[in-house]
């Protein structure tokens, strides 16, 4: 079984009035199926309100399914007894860099997780150093988080999760509040963790450029998975993506427009500048 498995996962937000009667029900997740293999780099795309954050919060047992099931490394998240096991195996990084850093010193914050699960002091120090090194923030270990840039803060947050030695990290729009440099930093760190340490990554985002190097991409809309496949496969369906309030990188859009204007030599699903340059070159040479 894959490391994350969801079957017909349903989550309903129920709004009650003062007397406890049901006022409205909002179905945030509508029978979602998911299969993630260990070591994969998965991207989940979707507009705000598509249910992607709700899905993310099920993976580390912050939310409980209303119906259906989700297993993390074999543990059923619906079972209360499994909560801490699940959270250790599936760590989560949130959108707001400041609101997930607890301590006033970087190394102390990274140690927060191990402290919580009763790791012995010496081992905590080992893990803290290793994690900070893995995200390239070791030299900031004595710094106050307030003096760091957004990208640096997020890397500290990632280190804090890594210190718990999870099998999988879910990142819920980690770059939404960062500037382009910060985004680059965070993505680089995350890809390295995936490549060098084999950590399964689930990246939740609505920035298309970030999913180009994913192993697989899921698109969510209205609580359902509406598209899934390789980045290339999805990127070739520009119109459908736009239907789901998403976008494609400029280069992909340009390629799409050129194809629509009759240039059949341009393949579908162009992901990078280099690919488009190549395609145009070949096309010209064919004349």
């Amino acid at each position: 079984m894959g490391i994350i498995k969801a079957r017909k996962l349903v989550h309903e937000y129920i709004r009650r009035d003062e007397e406890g009667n049901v006022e409205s029900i909002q179905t945030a997740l509508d029978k979602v199926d998911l299969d993630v293999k260990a070591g994969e780099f998965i991207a989940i795309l979707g507009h705000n309100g598509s249910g992607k954050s709700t899905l993310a919060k099920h993976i580390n047992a912050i939310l409980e399914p209303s119906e259906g099931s989700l297993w993390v490394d074999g543990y059923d998240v619906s079972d209360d007894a499994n909560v801490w096991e699940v959270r250790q195996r599936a760590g989560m990084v949130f959108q707001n860099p400041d609101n997930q850093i607890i301590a006033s010193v970087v190394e102390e914050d990274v140690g927060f997780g191990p402290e919580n699960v009763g790791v012995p002091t010496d081992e905590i120090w080992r893990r803290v150093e290793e994690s900070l090194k893995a995200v390239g923030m070791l030299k900031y270990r004595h710094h106050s988080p307030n003096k760091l840039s957004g990208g640096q803060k997020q890397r500290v947050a990632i280190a804090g999760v890594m210190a718990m030695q999870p099998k999988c990290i879910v990142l819920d729009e980690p770059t939404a509040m960062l500037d382009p440099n910060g985004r680059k930093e965070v993505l680089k760190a995350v890809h390295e963790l995936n490549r060098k340490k084999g950590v399964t990554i689930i990246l939740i985002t609505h920035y298309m450029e970030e999913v180009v190097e994913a192993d697989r991409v899921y698109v969510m809309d209205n609580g359902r998975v509406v598209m899934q496949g390789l980045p290339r496969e999805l990127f070739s369906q520009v119109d459908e993506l736009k239907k789901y309030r998403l976008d494609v990188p400029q280069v992909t859009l340009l390629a799409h427009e050129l194809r629509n204007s009759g240039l059949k030599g341009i393949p579908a699903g162009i992901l990078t500048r280099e690919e488009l340059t190549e395609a145009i070159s070949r096309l010209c040479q064919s004349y």
Partner: protein
Amino acid sequence: MTAMLRDITLGQYYPADSPIHKLDPRVKLLGTLIYIISLFIFKGIPAFVLTVIFLIAVIRISKVPFSYMVKGLKAIVILMIITGLFNLFLTPGTEWVHFWIFTITYEGAKSAAMMLIRLIFLIVGTSLMTLTTTPNQLTDGLEKSLHPLNKIHVPVHEIAMMMSIALRFIPILIEETDKIMKAQMARGADFESGSILKKAKAMIPLLVPLFISAFRRANDLAMAMEARCYHGGEGRTRMKPLRYQKRDHIAYVILFLYLALIIALRFVWVNYAVALL
């Protein structure tokens, strides 16, 4: 401006490599308490001299510049003046100076002087503790020393955690206040002019968003803490556990000797004074 504010932590920690800095925070907490007690129970010149020597010695060992001590005093200058004046003019006793409707007695002069000295030493002593101990060391120290209160269901760990999180977020909230103020000023809000009532009303566009933001942060933070398996104080280990070293034991001995001496001198003085009569 806000960039600078972010660096200010409560109590102004002054980093240095001194024996005082290296002391366990529990020793310093108790030490400050003992010193404050000694300030209020000492009697007689010898005891006074002892308190002075003690303070100066600790200041010197701590390697914190004297100017930093004085900074703390600036804040209470008004309090000092009021206390001094009250004691000076309102203490009954043998008249010393008299002008117009004011009378200063010998007792008044003495008690004013004593009060001022106590205040000054109290502030300097407490400043010394915060100058040589980081806020987080203090909360750790409080948590460990108040641990026994758990038996009467006082949530010591939770309180300490709340305190250290508050300390971490103070600079962030200061910055946020600045941002919100500027945003409302850009819409014509006026926080400066007008009556007290008007100014109070003007605070609403500042306080409401600030509160909402604080709640949002609290919510996010709680989620992030739970995601990292936080579940209260049970079963938690420490990355930087507080363990007594030899220097801490020595410090405790010195502190208790100091207190004992102060108490002893008080009795000696009282007996001496009685013998004189």
